[in-house]
Protein backbone atom coordinates (compact mmCIF):
# COMPACT_ATOMS: atom_id res chain seq x y z
CA UNK A 1 0.00 0.00 0.00
CA UNK A 2 1.34 3.42 -0.86
CA UNK A 3 1.65 6.12 1.77
CA UNK A 4 -0.99 8.22 0.03
CA UNK A 5 -3.54 5.43 0.04
CA UNK A 6 -2.87 4.73 3.70
CA UNK A 7 -3.37 8.40 4.47
CA UNK A 8 -6.68 8.37 2.60
CA UNK A 9 -7.76 5.24 4.45
CA UNK A 10 -6.87 6.86 7.76
CA UNK A 11 -8.83 10.03 7.02
CA UNK A 12 -11.86 8.00 5.88
CA UNK A 13 -11.83 5.89 9.02
CA UNK A 14 -11.47 8.98 11.19
CA UNK A 15 -14.38 10.70 9.45
CA UNK A 16 -16.47 7.57 9.87
CA UNK A 17 -15.55 7.38 13.56
CA UNK A 18 -16.69 10.98 14.09
CA UNK A 19 -20.11 10.59 12.47
CA UNK A 20 -20.93 7.08 13.76
CA UNK A 21 -22.66 8.18 17.01
CA UNK A 22 -25.03 10.37 14.96
CA UNK A 23 -26.31 7.36 13.02
CA UNK A 24 -25.84 4.43 15.34
CA UNK A 25 -27.92 4.41 18.48
CA UNK A 26 -27.15 0.85 19.46
CA UNK A 27 -25.61 1.19 22.90
CA UNK A 28 -23.81 -2.09 22.32
CA UNK A 29 -21.96 -0.90 19.23
CA UNK A 30 -20.97 2.45 20.77
CA UNK A 31 -19.77 0.64 23.87
CA UNK A 32 -17.72 -1.79 21.79
CA UNK A 33 -16.14 1.02 19.79
CA UNK A 34 -15.36 2.88 23.01
CA UNK A 35 -13.63 -0.23 24.36
CA UNK A 36 -11.66 -0.50 21.12
CA UNK A 37 -10.51 3.13 21.44
CA UNK A 38 -9.49 2.58 25.06
CA UNK A 39 -7.62 -0.50 23.94
CA UNK A 40 -5.83 1.38 21.15
CA UNK A 41 -4.73 4.04 23.64
CA UNK A 42 -3.67 1.44 26.20
CA UNK A 43 -1.70 -0.66 23.69
CA UNK A 44 0.00 2.34 22.11
CA UNK A 45 1.06 3.61 25.52
CA UNK A 46 2.33 0.15 26.47
CA UNK A 47 4.23 0.04 23.18
CA UNK A 48 6.44 3.11 23.82
CA UNK A 49 9.11 1.29 25.91
CA UNK A 50 8.93 -1.55 23.40
CA UNK A 51 10.63 0.76 20.88
CA UNK A 52 13.64 0.11 23.11
CA UNK A 53 12.93 -3.60 23.51
CA UNK A 54 11.51 -3.31 27.04
CA UNK A 55 8.30 -5.32 27.24
CA UNK A 56 6.29 -4.85 30.38
CA UNK A 57 3.68 -7.28 31.62
CA UNK A 58 2.85 -5.02 34.55
CA UNK A 59 1.05 -2.10 33.00
CA UNK A 60 -2.07 -2.90 35.01
CA UNK A 61 -0.05 -1.28 37.81
CA UNK A 62 -0.10 2.17 36.19
CA UNK A 63 -3.64 1.73 34.93
CA UNK A 64 -4.79 0.82 38.44
CA UNK A 65 -2.80 3.56 40.18
CA UNK A 66 -4.30 6.16 37.85
CA UNK A 67 -7.82 4.81 38.21
CA UNK A 68 -7.63 4.52 41.98
CA UNK A 69 -6.17 8.00 42.36
CA UNK A 70 -9.03 9.54 40.35
CA UNK A 71 -11.68 7.48 42.15
CA UNK A 72 -10.37 8.01 45.69
CA UNK A 73 -10.02 11.77 45.17
CA UNK A 74 -13.55 12.00 43.78
CA UNK A 75 -15.43 9.57 46.03
CA UNK A 76 -13.58 10.09 49.31
CA UNK A 77 -12.55 13.73 49.07
CA UNK A 78 -15.00 15.19 46.56
CA UNK A 79 -12.21 16.36 44.26
CA UNK A 80 -13.26 16.99 40.66
CA UNK A 81 -12.29 14.28 38.13
CA UNK A 82 -10.65 17.03 36.10
CA UNK A 83 -8.14 17.42 38.92
CA UNK A 84 -8.14 13.65 39.38
CA UNK A 85 -6.81 13.27 35.83
CA UNK A 86 -3.50 15.11 36.32
CA UNK A 87 -3.27 13.70 39.83
CA UNK A 88 -3.67 10.18 38.42
CA UNK A 89 -0.93 10.89 35.90
CA UNK A 90 1.36 12.23 38.63
CA UNK A 91 0.90 9.20 40.89
CA UNK A 92 1.36 6.82 37.92
CA UNK A 93 4.57 8.63 37.05
CA UNK A 94 5.73 8.14 40.61
CA UNK A 95 4.85 4.45 40.23
CA UNK A 96 6.81 4.47 36.98
CA UNK A 97 9.89 5.84 38.73
CA UNK A 98 9.61 3.34 41.59
CA UNK A 99 9.18 0.41 39.22
CA UNK A 100 11.66 1.48 36.59
CA UNK A 101 14.73 2.49 38.57
CA UNK A 102 15.50 -0.90 40.10
CA UNK A 103 14.41 -2.82 36.98
CA UNK A 104 16.43 -0.95 34.39
CA UNK A 105 19.47 -3.12 34.90
CA UNK A 106 17.45 -6.16 33.90
CA UNK A 107 17.41 -7.19 30.28
CA UNK A 108 14.85 -8.85 28.05
CA UNK A 109 12.72 -11.51 29.75
CA UNK A 110 14.05 -10.67 33.22
CA UNK A 111 12.71 -7.15 32.96
CA UNK A 112 9.38 -8.49 31.74
CA UNK A 113 9.06 -11.00 34.59
CA UNK A 114 9.86 -8.40 37.23
CA UNK A 115 7.12 -6.09 35.96
CA UNK A 116 4.46 -8.77 36.57
CA UNK A 117 5.30 -8.81 40.26
CA UNK A 118 4.87 -5.05 40.50
CA UNK A 119 1.19 -5.07 39.45
CA UNK A 120 0.47 -8.05 41.70
CA UNK A 121 1.89 -6.25 44.74
CA UNK A 122 -0.30 -3.22 44.04
CA UNK A 123 -3.37 -5.44 43.71
CA UNK A 124 -2.65 -6.84 47.17
CA UNK A 125 -2.21 -3.35 48.58
CA UNK A 126 -5.52 -2.25 47.03
CA UNK A 127 -7.25 -5.23 48.67
CA UNK A 128 -5.69 -4.74 52.10
CA UNK A 129 -5.70 -0.95 52.50
CA UNK A 130 -9.42 -0.90 53.27
CA UNK A 131 -9.63 2.56 54.83
CA UNK A 132 -8.52 4.12 51.56
CA UNK A 133 -9.65 1.68 48.88
CA UNK A 134 -12.62 -0.01 50.52
CA UNK A 135 -10.84 -3.34 50.00
CA UNK A 136 -12.00 -5.88 47.48
CA UNK A 137 -15.45 -4.28 47.27
CA UNK A 138 -13.91 -1.18 45.74
CA UNK A 139 -15.40 2.26 45.25
CA UNK A 140 -18.44 3.19 43.18
CA UNK A 141 -18.55 6.43 41.25
CA UNK A 142 -21.89 8.05 42.14
CA UNK A 143 -24.11 8.57 39.10
CA UNK A 144 -24.39 12.37 38.82
CA UNK A 145 -24.37 13.00 35.07
CA UNK A 146 -22.57 16.07 33.73
CA UNK A 147 -19.21 17.12 32.29
CA UNK A 148 -18.13 18.42 35.71
CA UNK A 149 -18.39 14.91 37.10
CA UNK A 150 -17.17 13.15 33.95
CA UNK A 151 -20.30 10.98 34.17
CA UNK A 152 -22.83 10.77 31.36
CA UNK A 153 -26.32 9.57 30.57
CA UNK A 154 -25.56 8.62 26.96
CA UNK A 155 -22.65 6.66 25.51
CA UNK A 156 -21.63 9.38 23.08
CA UNK A 157 -19.40 11.54 25.34
CA UNK A 158 -17.19 8.63 26.37
CA UNK A 159 -17.13 7.47 22.78
CA UNK A 160 -15.56 10.80 21.82
CA UNK A 161 -13.36 11.01 24.91
CA UNK A 162 -11.89 7.58 24.16
CA UNK A 163 -11.54 8.43 20.46
CA UNK A 164 -9.60 11.60 21.28
CA UNK A 165 -7.56 9.69 23.85
CA UNK A 166 -6.66 7.02 21.28
CA UNK A 167 -5.69 9.60 18.66
CA UNK A 168 -3.66 11.58 21.20
CA UNK A 169 -1.72 8.57 22.47
CA UNK A 170 -1.00 7.27 18.95
CA UNK A 171 0.15 10.77 17.97
CA UNK A 172 2.41 11.04 21.02
CA UNK A 173 3.85 7.58 20.34
CA UNK A 174 4.46 8.61 16.72
CA UNK A 175 6.22 11.82 17.72
CA UNK A 176 8.34 10.01 20.31
CA UNK A 177 9.34 7.30 17.85
CA UNK A 178 10.55 9.90 15.38
CA UNK A 179 12.37 11.99 17.98
CA UNK A 180 15.88 11.61 19.37
CA UNK A 181 14.38 9.48 22.16
CA UNK A 182 12.82 7.12 19.62
CA UNK A 183 16.13 6.78 17.77
CA UNK A 184 17.95 6.02 21.01
CA UNK A 185 15.41 3.43 22.07
CA UNK A 186 15.46 1.70 18.70
CA UNK A 187 19.26 1.75 18.63
CA UNK A 188 19.39 0.27 22.11
CA UNK A 189 16.93 -2.46 21.14
CA UNK A 190 19.05 -3.62 18.23
CA UNK A 191 22.52 -3.19 19.74
CA UNK A 192 22.77 -1.65 23.18
CA UNK A 193 26.56 -1.87 23.47
CA UNK A 194 27.08 -0.03 20.19
CA UNK A 195 24.49 2.62 21.09
CA UNK A 196 26.33 3.33 24.36
CA UNK A 197 29.68 3.51 22.60
CA UNK A 198 28.16 6.16 20.32
CA UNK A 199 27.27 8.35 23.28
CA UNK A 200 23.68 7.27 23.85
CA UNK A 201 22.74 7.05 27.51
CA UNK A 202 20.49 4.07 26.88
CA UNK A 203 19.36 3.63 30.49
CA UNK A 204 18.16 7.20 30.57
CA UNK A 205 16.31 6.66 27.29
CA UNK A 206 14.56 3.56 28.65
CA UNK A 207 13.69 5.46 31.80
CA UNK A 208 12.10 8.36 29.92
CA UNK A 209 10.27 5.97 27.59
CA UNK A 210 8.79 4.12 30.56
CA UNK A 211 7.77 7.38 32.20
CA UNK A 212 5.82 8.45 29.10
CA UNK A 213 4.24 5.04 29.02
CA UNK A 214 3.30 4.92 32.70
CA UNK A 215 1.95 8.48 32.75
CA UNK A 216 -0.24 7.93 29.71
CA UNK A 217 -1.46 4.59 31.05
CA UNK A 218 -2.40 6.26 34.33
CA UNK A 219 -4.35 8.92 32.42
CA UNK A 220 -6.25 6.22 30.52
CA UNK A 221 -6.92 4.49 33.85
CA UNK A 222 -8.63 7.58 35.32
CA UNK A 223 -10.89 7.98 32.27
CA UNK A 224 -11.68 4.28 32.32
CA UNK A 225 -12.84 4.37 35.95
CA UNK A 226 -15.34 7.13 35.14
CA UNK A 227 -16.42 5.11 32.10
CA UNK A 228 -17.25 1.97 34.13
CA UNK A 229 -18.28 3.84 37.36
CA UNK A 230 -16.25 1.59 39.64
CA UNK A 231 -12.75 0.80 40.90
CA UNK A 232 -12.09 -2.61 42.28
CA UNK A 233 -8.72 -4.32 42.77
CA UNK A 234 -9.29 -7.40 40.65
CA UNK A 235 -10.38 -5.34 37.65
CA UNK A 236 -8.05 -2.36 37.87
CA UNK A 237 -4.93 -4.41 38.63
CA UNK A 238 -6.05 -7.33 36.46
CA UNK A 239 -3.03 -8.95 34.86
CA UNK A 240 -5.10 -10.47 32.07
CA UNK A 241 -7.09 -7.34 31.23
CA UNK A 242 -4.54 -4.57 31.48
CA UNK A 243 -1.12 -6.22 31.50
CA UNK A 244 -1.43 -9.16 29.15
CA UNK A 245 -4.08 -7.72 26.83
CA UNK A 246 -2.03 -4.73 25.61
CA UNK A 247 0.97 -7.02 25.14
CA UNK A 248 -1.16 -9.47 23.22
CA UNK A 249 -2.65 -6.73 21.03
CA UNK A 250 0.81 -5.39 20.41
CA UNK A 251 2.38 -8.74 19.51
CA UNK A 252 -0.45 -9.64 17.16
CA UNK A 253 -0.53 -6.22 15.50
CA UNK A 254 3.26 -5.73 15.46
CA UNK A 255 5.27 -4.56 18.46
CA UNK A 256 7.53 -1.53 18.36
CA UNK A 257 5.66 -0.02 15.40
CA UNK A 258 3.07 2.76 15.39
CA UNK A 259 0.22 0.99 13.60
CA UNK A 260 0.75 -2.51 14.98
CA UNK A 261 -0.87 -1.70 18.36
CA UNK A 262 -3.77 0.02 16.59
CA UNK A 263 -4.42 -2.95 14.31
CA UNK A 264 -3.97 -5.40 17.18
CA UNK A 265 -6.42 -3.53 19.42
CA UNK A 266 -9.01 -3.21 16.64
CA UNK A 267 -8.93 -6.95 15.97
CA UNK A 268 -8.43 -8.33 19.46
CA UNK A 269 -10.90 -6.21 21.45
CA UNK A 270 -14.11 -7.37 19.69
CA UNK A 271 -12.70 -10.88 19.37
CA UNK A 272 -11.89 -10.91 23.07
CA UNK A 273 -15.36 -9.69 24.03
CA UNK A 274 -17.02 -12.21 21.70
CA UNK A 275 -14.93 -15.08 23.01
CA UNK A 276 -15.50 -14.06 26.63
CA UNK A 277 -19.26 -13.91 26.20
CA UNK A 278 -19.76 -17.03 24.08
CA UNK A 279 -16.94 -19.37 25.00
CA UNK A 280 -16.53 -18.16 28.58
CA UNK A 281 -20.04 -19.35 29.38
CA UNK A 282 -19.41 -22.84 27.98
CA UNK A 283 -16.33 -23.37 30.06
CA UNK A 284 -14.59 -20.68 32.06
CA UNK A 285 -11.18 -19.92 30.59
CA UNK A 286 -11.95 -21.46 27.20
CA UNK A 287 -11.64 -17.99 25.64
CA UNK A 288 -8.00 -17.87 26.78
CA UNK A 289 -7.32 -21.13 24.96
CA UNK A 290 -8.33 -19.45 21.70
CA UNK A 291 -6.15 -16.45 22.64
CA UNK A 292 -3.25 -18.80 23.15
CA UNK A 293 -3.74 -20.38 19.75
CA UNK A 294 -3.96 -16.98 18.02
CA UNK A 295 -0.78 -15.87 19.79
CA UNK A 296 1.18 -19.02 18.91
CA UNK A 297 0.12 -18.84 15.27
CA UNK A 298 1.08 -15.16 15.04
CA UNK A 299 4.46 -15.52 16.70
CA UNK A 300 5.33 -18.54 14.56
CA UNK A 301 4.11 -17.43 11.16
CA UNK A 302 4.14 -13.64 11.25
CA UNK A 303 6.64 -12.70 13.99
CA UNK A 304 6.49 -9.05 12.91
CA UNK A 305 2.74 -9.00 13.53
CA UNK A 306 -0.04 -8.16 11.10
CA UNK A 307 1.51 -4.78 10.30
CA UNK A 308 4.56 -6.54 8.80
CA UNK A 309 2.32 -8.04 6.11
CA UNK A 310 1.40 -4.54 4.96
CA UNK A 311 4.99 -3.30 5.25
CA UNK A 312 6.48 -5.92 2.95
CA UNK A 313 4.91 -4.39 -0.12
CA UNK A 314 6.31 -0.93 0.47
CA UNK A 315 9.88 -1.89 1.46
CA UNK A 316 10.76 -4.16 -1.47
CA UNK A 317 11.95 -1.23 -3.55
CA UNK A 318 14.82 -0.10 -1.32
CA UNK A 319 16.99 -3.19 -1.90
CA UNK A 320 18.08 -2.20 -5.40
CA UNK A 321 21.66 -1.32 -4.45
CA UNK A 322 22.46 -5.01 -3.99
CA UNK A 323 25.88 -6.53 -3.42
CA UNK A 324 27.84 -6.69 -6.68
CA UNK A 325 31.23 -5.93 -5.12
CA UNK A 326 31.29 -9.18 -3.15
CA UNK A 327 30.58 -11.33 -6.17
CA UNK A 328 33.08 -9.85 -8.62
CA UNK A 329 36.22 -10.67 -6.67
CA UNK A 330 35.24 -14.23 -5.82
CA UNK A 331 35.34 -15.28 -9.51
Amino acid at each position, binding site marked *: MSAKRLQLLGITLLAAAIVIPAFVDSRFILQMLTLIFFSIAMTSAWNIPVFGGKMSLGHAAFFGIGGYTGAILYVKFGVSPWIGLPAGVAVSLLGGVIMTLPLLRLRGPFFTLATIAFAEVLRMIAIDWRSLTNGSVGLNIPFKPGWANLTFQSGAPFYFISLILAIAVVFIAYRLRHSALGFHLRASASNDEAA*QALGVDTRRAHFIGLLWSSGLTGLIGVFYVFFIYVVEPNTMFSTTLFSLQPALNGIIGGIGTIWGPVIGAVIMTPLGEYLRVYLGTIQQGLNFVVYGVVLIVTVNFIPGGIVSLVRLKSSNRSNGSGSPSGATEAH
Partner: protein
Amino acid sequence: MPLLQVKNLTKRFGGLKAVNNVSFDIHSDEIVGLIGANGAGKTTLFNLISGILHPEGGDITLDGRPLNQLSPPRRSLAGLGRTFQIVRPFAMTVLENVMVPLLARDPHMGKAREEGMQVLALLRLEHLADTQPDSLTLAQRKRIEVARALATRPKLLMLDEVLAGLNPTEISENLPIIRQVHEQGVTIFIIEHLMDALMAVSQRVLVMDQGAIIASGTPQEVTSNECVIKAYLGEETPNC
Protein backbone atom coordinates in the same frame (compact mmCIF):
# COMPACT_ATOMS: atom_id res chain seq x y z
CA MET B 1 50.59 16.15 26.48
CA PRO B 2 49.52 12.91 24.80
CA LEU B 3 45.88 12.60 23.62
CA LEU B 4 45.42 9.16 25.12
CA GLN B 5 47.41 8.07 28.11
CA VAL B 6 47.16 4.52 29.40
CA LYS B 7 49.04 3.66 32.59
CA ASN B 8 49.54 0.24 34.18
CA LEU B 9 46.24 -1.07 32.89
CA THR B 10 45.39 -4.59 34.08
CA LYS B 11 42.39 -6.83 33.46
CA ARG B 12 42.01 -10.42 34.65
CA PHE B 13 39.49 -12.99 33.52
CA GLY B 14 39.69 -15.54 36.32
CA GLY B 15 43.34 -16.58 36.42
CA LEU B 16 44.11 -15.18 32.98
CA LYS B 17 45.70 -11.76 32.73
CA ALA B 18 44.06 -10.61 29.50
CA VAL B 19 45.68 -7.20 29.80
CA ASN B 20 48.77 -7.14 31.97
CA ASN B 21 50.17 -3.86 33.25
CA VAL B 22 49.91 -2.10 29.91
CA SER B 23 51.15 1.49 29.50
CA PHE B 24 51.37 3.56 26.34
CA ASP B 25 50.58 7.00 24.92
CA ILE B 26 48.95 8.13 21.71
CA HIS B 27 49.60 11.66 20.51
CA SER B 28 47.29 13.92 18.56
CA ASP B 29 47.28 13.32 14.83
CA GLU B 30 48.91 9.89 14.98
CA ILE B 31 47.73 6.69 13.34
CA VAL B 32 48.78 3.95 15.72
CA GLY B 33 48.38 0.28 14.85
CA LEU B 34 47.86 -2.51 17.35
CA ILE B 35 48.79 -6.02 16.32
CA GLY B 36 49.07 -9.36 18.03
CA ALA B 37 47.97 -12.95 17.68
CA ASN B 38 44.43 -14.09 18.48
CA GLY B 39 43.79 -13.81 22.20
CA ALA B 40 46.67 -11.39 22.75
CA GLY B 41 44.27 -8.95 24.43
CA LYS B 42 43.75 -6.35 21.69
CA THR B 43 39.97 -6.17 21.80
CA THR B 44 40.00 -6.42 25.60
CA LEU B 45 42.25 -3.35 25.62
CA PHE B 46 39.73 -1.50 23.39
CA ASN B 47 36.88 -2.57 25.66
CA LEU B 48 38.74 -1.25 28.71
CA ILE B 49 39.43 2.08 27.06
CA SER B 50 35.85 2.49 25.83
CA GLY B 51 34.46 1.49 29.23
CA ILE B 52 32.66 -1.75 28.35
CA LEU B 53 34.99 -3.60 30.70
CA HIS B 54 36.32 -2.35 34.02
CA PRO B 55 40.02 -2.79 34.78
CA GLU B 56 41.37 -4.17 38.05
CA GLY B 57 43.96 -1.43 38.03
CA GLY B 58 45.48 1.37 36.00
CA ASP B 59 44.48 4.74 34.62
CA ILE B 60 43.13 5.96 31.30
CA THR B 61 43.20 9.66 30.39
CA LEU B 62 41.88 11.30 27.26
CA ASP B 63 43.08 14.82 26.56
CA GLY B 64 44.03 15.17 30.22
CA ARG B 65 40.66 13.97 31.47
CA PRO B 66 40.55 10.75 33.53
CA LEU B 67 38.12 8.27 31.98
CA ASN B 68 38.06 5.52 34.61
CA GLN B 69 34.90 6.70 36.37
CA LEU B 70 32.97 7.52 33.18
CA SER B 71 30.29 5.30 31.61
CA PRO B 72 30.70 4.28 27.94
CA PRO B 73 28.30 7.01 26.67
CA ARG B 74 30.14 9.65 28.72
CA ARG B 75 33.45 8.51 27.25
CA SER B 76 31.95 8.85 23.81
CA LEU B 77 30.81 12.38 24.60
CA ALA B 78 34.33 13.09 25.92
CA GLY B 79 35.69 12.39 22.44
CA LEU B 80 36.35 8.67 22.33
CA GLY B 81 34.95 6.87 19.29
CA ARG B 82 35.13 3.19 18.47
CA THR B 83 33.90 0.54 16.08
CA PHE B 84 33.16 -3.08 16.88
CA GLN B 85 34.82 -6.10 15.34
CA ILE B 86 31.46 -7.79 14.80
CA VAL B 87 29.39 -5.28 12.87
CA ARG B 88 25.75 -5.16 13.88
CA PRO B 89 24.13 -2.02 12.47
CA PHE B 90 20.92 -0.83 14.11
CA ALA B 91 17.71 -2.07 12.50
CA MET B 92 17.00 1.23 10.74
CA THR B 93 18.15 2.88 7.52
CA VAL B 94 21.82 3.69 6.91
CA LEU B 95 21.18 7.41 7.40
CA GLU B 96 19.24 6.79 10.61
CA ASN B 97 22.14 4.67 11.89
CA VAL B 98 24.45 7.65 11.52
CA MET B 99 21.86 9.99 13.05
CA VAL B 100 21.86 8.06 16.35
CA PRO B 101 25.16 9.49 17.66
CA LEU B 102 24.34 12.94 16.24
CA LEU B 103 21.01 12.98 18.11
CA ALA B 104 22.78 12.00 21.33
CA ARG B 105 24.59 15.34 21.07
CA ASP B 106 21.85 17.56 19.69
CA PRO B 107 18.22 16.37 19.50
CA HIS B 108 17.46 18.57 16.50
CA MET B 109 16.15 16.18 13.82
CA GLY B 110 16.75 18.28 10.70
CA LYS B 111 20.31 19.09 11.69
CA ALA B 112 21.08 15.45 12.43
CA ARG B 113 19.72 14.47 9.01
CA GLU B 114 21.86 17.07 7.29
CA GLU B 115 25.05 16.25 9.18
CA GLY B 116 24.34 12.54 8.77
CA MET B 117 24.31 12.98 5.00
CA GLN B 118 27.65 14.80 5.20
CA VAL B 119 29.21 11.91 7.11
CA LEU B 120 27.75 9.42 4.61
CA ALA B 121 29.17 11.46 1.74
CA LEU B 122 32.62 11.35 3.32
CA LEU B 123 32.44 7.55 3.40
CA ARG B 124 30.83 7.34 -0.05
CA LEU B 125 27.64 5.86 1.37
CA GLU B 126 25.22 8.66 0.49
CA HIS B 127 23.55 6.61 -2.28
CA LEU B 128 22.62 4.00 0.36
CA ALA B 129 21.14 6.51 2.83
CA ASP B 130 17.61 5.07 2.72
CA THR B 131 18.62 1.41 2.56
CA GLN B 132 18.26 -1.10 5.38
CA PRO B 133 21.81 -2.24 6.30
CA ASP B 134 20.96 -5.94 6.44
CA SER B 135 20.78 -5.99 2.64
CA LEU B 136 24.33 -4.63 2.27
CA THR B 137 27.72 -6.30 1.86
CA LEU B 138 30.10 -6.76 4.79
CA ALA B 139 32.37 -4.07 3.33
CA GLN B 140 29.49 -1.60 3.21
CA ARG B 141 28.34 -2.50 6.71
CA LYS B 142 31.88 -1.95 7.99
CA ARG B 143 31.81 1.48 6.39
CA ILE B 144 28.54 2.21 8.21
CA GLU B 145 30.28 1.19 11.42
CA VAL B 146 33.04 3.74 10.70
CA ALA B 147 30.50 6.38 9.63
CA ARG B 148 28.58 5.97 12.90
CA ALA B 149 31.74 6.29 14.98
CA LEU B 150 32.92 9.26 12.94
CA ALA B 151 29.58 11.00 13.48
CA THR B 152 30.45 11.19 17.20
CA ARG B 153 33.17 13.67 16.10
CA PRO B 154 35.79 11.80 18.10
CA LYS B 155 39.19 13.12 19.10
CA LEU B 156 40.40 9.53 19.11
CA LEU B 157 38.83 6.88 16.88
CA MET B 158 39.51 3.26 17.73
CA LEU B 159 38.94 0.93 14.78
CA ASP B 160 38.61 -2.77 15.55
CA GLU B 161 39.35 -4.86 12.45
CA VAL B 162 37.47 -2.75 9.95
CA LEU B 163 39.22 -4.57 7.10
CA ALA B 164 39.03 -8.17 8.32
CA GLY B 165 36.84 -10.44 6.24
CA LEU B 166 36.94 -8.21 3.18
CA ASN B 167 38.26 -9.28 -0.22
CA PRO B 168 41.24 -7.47 -1.80
CA THR B 169 39.04 -5.18 -3.91
CA GLU B 170 37.02 -4.16 -0.90
CA ILE B 171 40.16 -3.61 1.14
CA SER B 172 41.57 -1.32 -1.50
CA GLU B 173 38.26 0.54 -1.41
CA ASN B 174 38.08 0.83 2.38
CA LEU B 175 41.76 1.45 3.15
CA PRO B 176 41.85 5.03 1.77
CA ILE B 177 38.90 5.84 4.03
CA ILE B 178 41.10 5.40 7.09
CA ARG B 179 43.57 7.95 5.72
CA GLN B 180 40.72 10.23 4.74
CA VAL B 181 39.29 10.15 8.26
CA HIS B 182 42.76 10.91 9.59
CA GLU B 183 42.98 13.93 7.29
CA GLN B 184 39.83 15.26 9.00
CA GLY B 185 42.00 15.71 12.06
CA VAL B 186 41.01 12.50 13.85
CA THR B 187 43.66 10.54 15.70
CA ILE B 188 43.37 6.83 14.96
CA PHE B 189 44.11 3.72 16.98
CA ILE B 190 43.58 0.66 14.85
CA ILE B 191 43.51 -3.10 15.43
CA GLU B 192 44.08 -5.05 12.28
CA HIS B 193 44.94 -8.64 11.47
CA LEU B 194 45.99 -7.85 7.93
CA MET B 195 49.62 -6.85 8.45
CA ASP B 196 50.14 -5.36 4.99
CA ALA B 197 47.15 -3.07 5.34
CA LEU B 198 48.09 -2.04 8.85
CA MET B 199 51.71 -1.34 7.94
CA ALA B 200 50.52 0.75 5.01
CA VAL B 201 48.51 3.18 7.14
CA SER B 202 50.19 3.19 10.57
CA GLN B 203 52.86 5.63 11.59
CA ARG B 204 53.60 3.64 14.71
CA VAL B 205 52.76 0.08 15.73
CA LEU B 206 52.24 -1.50 19.15
CA VAL B 207 52.58 -5.27 19.44
CA MET B 208 50.66 -7.21 22.06
CA ASP B 209 51.37 -10.73 23.22
CA GLN B 210 49.71 -12.51 26.11
CA GLY B 211 48.24 -9.33 27.49
CA ALA B 212 51.44 -7.27 27.43
CA ILE B 213 52.88 -4.79 24.97
CA ILE B 214 56.13 -6.38 23.80
CA ALA B 215 57.22 -3.90 21.16
CA SER B 216 56.52 -0.42 19.87
CA GLY B 217 57.94 1.47 16.92
CA THR B 218 57.63 2.25 13.25
CA PRO B 219 56.29 -0.57 11.08
CA GLN B 220 59.85 -1.31 9.88
CA GLU B 221 61.27 -1.45 13.39
CA VAL B 222 58.50 -3.68 14.63
CA THR B 223 58.64 -6.20 11.79
CA SER B 224 62.37 -6.66 12.28
CA ASN B 225 62.02 -7.00 16.06
CA GLU B 226 63.05 -10.47 17.18
CA CYS B 227 60.49 -10.69 19.96
CA VAL B 228 57.67 -9.88 17.57
CA ILE B 229 58.78 -12.51 15.10
CA LYS B 230 59.03 -15.08 17.85
CA ALA B 231 55.64 -14.15 19.25
CA TYR B 232 54.09 -14.50 15.82
CA LEU B 233 55.78 -17.83 15.16
CA GLY B 234 54.54 -19.03 18.52
CA GLU B 235 57.94 -19.75 20.09
CA GLU B 236 58.73 -19.48 23.76
CA THR B 237 60.02 -15.97 24.36
CA PRO B 238 62.01 -15.97 27.59
CA ASN B 239 64.11 -12.94 26.68
CA CYS B 240 61.30 -10.64 25.68
